[in-house]
């Protein structure tokens, strides 16, 4: 494993962190965030606890992800001439749905998100 550089940031502004999102300062070996969600946009202000919307009912949540084949093994030689990555300021509105925002090295990330939007109209 190649030696990782130090990440140095002066100022970070982050507004929101939601739905299996990660914001990390420091080094990580592995991250495996997963998120699934259904956003229902509905006509008319009629809301009940149960809208009859379930993950199992939709094909999107059953389909197999098209993961790439494992990479061909190769020999890589990395030479860090400066061991610090500097970023002055980061302004971010939000991190959501299995997203990752990290300051520091990270070996591996396997993440998966499934989001379904739908609109429900009233009958005329």
């Amino acid at each position, binding site marked *: 494993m190649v030696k990782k*550089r130090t*990440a140095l940031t002066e100022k970070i502004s982050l507004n929101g962190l939601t739905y299996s999102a990660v914001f990390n300062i420091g080094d990580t070996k592995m991250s495996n965030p997963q998120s699934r969600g259904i956003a229902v946009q509905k006509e008319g202000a009629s809301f009940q606890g149960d809208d009859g919307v379930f993950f199992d009912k939709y094909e999107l949540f059953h*389909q197999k992800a098209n993961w790439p084949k494992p990479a061909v093994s190769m020999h890589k030689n990395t030479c860090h001439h400066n061991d610090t*990555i500097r*970023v*002055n300021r*980061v302004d971010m509105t939000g991190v959501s749905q299995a997203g990752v925002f990290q300051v520091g*090295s990270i070996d591996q990330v396997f993440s*998966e998100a499934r989001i379904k939007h739908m609109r*429900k109209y009233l009958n005329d």
Partner: protein
Amino acid sequence: MNMEVHNWGLEVDNVAVGTVTASSVFLIGDNDAFVLSSFYDTPPEATAIGTIVPLSG
């Protein structure tokens, strides 16, 4: 296959990002491997008509 990488230096001033979402990564640092998958389904394909009982009157 052989590959040689030289990281001479990396200095960035200001970064402004809207949102990092649906299995995306914003990283300040080094990494080895990322495998990210995202499924997204949105109207008009996802439009459902006539499944809601209208309010009376």
